[in-house]
């Protein structure tokens, strides 16, 4: 199993040391990304999805003195055990990351060509001239029109969608095996978002690059992902392949999430079904199931015992819920 998976996270814990004490922003996350697979992590802000992504690349080490436990295997190597120097070799080389805000991720004083060639030359042995050609090729690959001209432009001359394409081009510069995309389209308009998501799907298809997509938008997940993990309060509450998740959601939180989307095909005369309350703070998490205080089906067991992430149903999805079987039966009866 481990050999098939490009990335395998096992019981990852990420701790922050805050004034309120040590809190774990990521609490026992296990997740695998296979070669050529697009895996999505969805959840509301503060659920720990971004921290999970950043823990993989250990981007939190210096800034916030995060500490980790668990294992993050990338091609069989535990990234959490690498030194900072070895880690730098992994970042950008085997694993690249793109962020929500492309403008603040680009250096405003350098042309985009210079920024791409810098990355190319620092990771691969390229002459200056070849690196420029490579930069133009990458920009063309990301669908930027007239890349020969664009390489000489500065980030502020580009639109938001173009900047995100440049970020993707930089991420592709060292032919990574895994691309971590942290809310890559949140700052973009829908028509541009559609273009970028298409691009990511195309790169995955044509280059066989695995993608770990962090997003809050279930619609985006449905568009491109093969498998999804839903996170709530630092834990994965449900994982499934995309079709199963949308067809037979197991966890009440996933169900709530799906029902709260004002999607284009739902009956708009009925009010949206919104889960009551809000996400608990990390330093005062409830005992038992973390979703229990907001869950319409919670009982005494839910409030005292934390459920485990277990296989549910026939289609291989896993959920962290005591009652998901009973719920899905009830659901089935209601539909019948």
């Amino acid at each position, binding site marked *: 199993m481990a050999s098939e998976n490009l990335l395998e996270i096992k019981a990852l814990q990420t701790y922050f040391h805050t004034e309120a004490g040590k809190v774990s922003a990521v609490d026992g996350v296990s997740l695998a990304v296979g070669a050529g697979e697009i895996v999505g992590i969805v959840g509301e802000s503060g659920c720990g999805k971004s921290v999970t992504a950043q823990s993989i690349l250990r981007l939190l080490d210096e800034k916030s003195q995060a500490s980790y436990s668990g294992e993050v295997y990338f091609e069989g190597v535990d990234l959490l055990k690498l030194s900072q120097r070895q880690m730098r070799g992994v970042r950008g080389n085997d694993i690249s990351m793109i962020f929500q805000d492309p403008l603040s991720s680009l250096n405003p004083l350098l042309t985009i060509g210079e920024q791409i060639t810098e990355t190319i030359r620092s990771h691969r042995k390229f002459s200056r001239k070849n690196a420029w050609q490579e930069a133009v090729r990458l920009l063309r690959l990301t669908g930027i029109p007239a890349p020969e001209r664009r390489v000489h432009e500065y980030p502020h001359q580009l639109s938001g969608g173009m900047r995100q394409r440049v970020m993707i081009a930089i991420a592709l510069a060292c032919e990574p095996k895994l691309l971590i995309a942290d809310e890559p389209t949140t700052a973009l308009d829908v*028509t541009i978002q559609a273009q970028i998501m298409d691009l990511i799907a195309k790169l995955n298809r044509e280059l066989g690059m695995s993608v770990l997509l962090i997003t809050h938008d279930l619609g985006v997940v*449905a568009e491109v992902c093969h498998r999804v993990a839903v996170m709530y309060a630092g834990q994965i509450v449900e994982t499934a392949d995309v079709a199963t998740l*949308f067809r037979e959601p197991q966890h009440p939180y996933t169900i709530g999430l799906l029902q709260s989307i*004002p999607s284009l*095909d739902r009956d708009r005369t009925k009010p949206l079904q919104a889960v009551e309350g809000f996400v608990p703070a990390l330093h005062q998490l409830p005992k038992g199931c973390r979703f229990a205080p907001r869950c319409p089906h919670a009982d005494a067991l839910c409030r005292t015992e934390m459920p485990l992430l277990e296989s549910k149903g026939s289609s291989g999805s896993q959920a962290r819920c005591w009652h998901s079987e009973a719920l899905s039966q009830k659901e089935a009866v209601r539909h019948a």
Partner: protein
Amino acid sequence: MPDIAKEQLPLKPILEVNGLRKYFASKQPGSWRTKTLKAVDNVSFHLYEGETYGLVGESGCGKSTLGRTLLRLTEPTEGTALYNGKDLFSLPGKELQASRKQLQMVFQDPFASLHPRKSIGAALTEPLIIHRIGTPAERYSRVLEILRVVGLQPSHYDRLPHELSGGQRQRVVLARALILEPKLVICDEPVSALDVIIQAQILNLMKQLQQDFKLTYLFIAHDLGVVRHISDRIGVMYLGKLVEEAPTDQLFASPKHPYTRALLSAVPKSDPAGKRDRILLEGDVPSPLDPPTGCTFHPRCPLATERCRKEIPVKREVADRHFAACHLA
């Protein structure tokens, strides 16, 4: 507005916007010349009492400027906005202040639209003080009442904005807009900064409040799902122009303008099994400083003809209460 609309909607328009233009002078870097940025370019529409009019478009299409201009947070360049027969744009200062009691606004960012150092109670009392309503005791009880209406606790009265979550803050912003009992509320992206569950809570609340307070909403947003859910009629804006307008169900069932069609097809479907035929638009929105000739959409339009490149299309009725500004519609 033609008569048909009035026959079908027995309500009278509460706001009639005619030929609204808002131009900005934009300094060009490295040049002395200024260019005109047509943020809102000849927009006309009517708002009927008790309805929700959704205004959608991508960033930079001028939908927010339109909303702000209606409240005269920026002065319009041209046009009229008749509110109950009075032109909002020519009201003198005193009457303008008074009109703001009936026209309210809810802003996008619940973090930025509350003063960071003023308690929730103070923020909600402020409008009452400004319009000299009630005694301090009456104001207090009215604030507690409105807190209850928007689903907050009396204990929130003394809190500061940073102690509340995004959803709670947006409830406070709604409460502040509603405490003056306005007729028309302009909502500028009220839920786009919120997580989807919180967004659903606020949308439900807004619908509830609309019924309870008999409100008319001008709902500005970029999220088509949200707009579809809350609006009775929808206007689609592109580069400062209103390109299509129709009742919600009709717009989604048979969009006439190619831009609307592309916009609708770009929305991610929350059903991975469903087949979608995507109209992928080429390129970006052109700069409003340099709008294309003819139909402003023609460089990205898959159907553009020679006529589209030369002639500016006029808004016309293509079906019952359905308007589009397209030569081909």
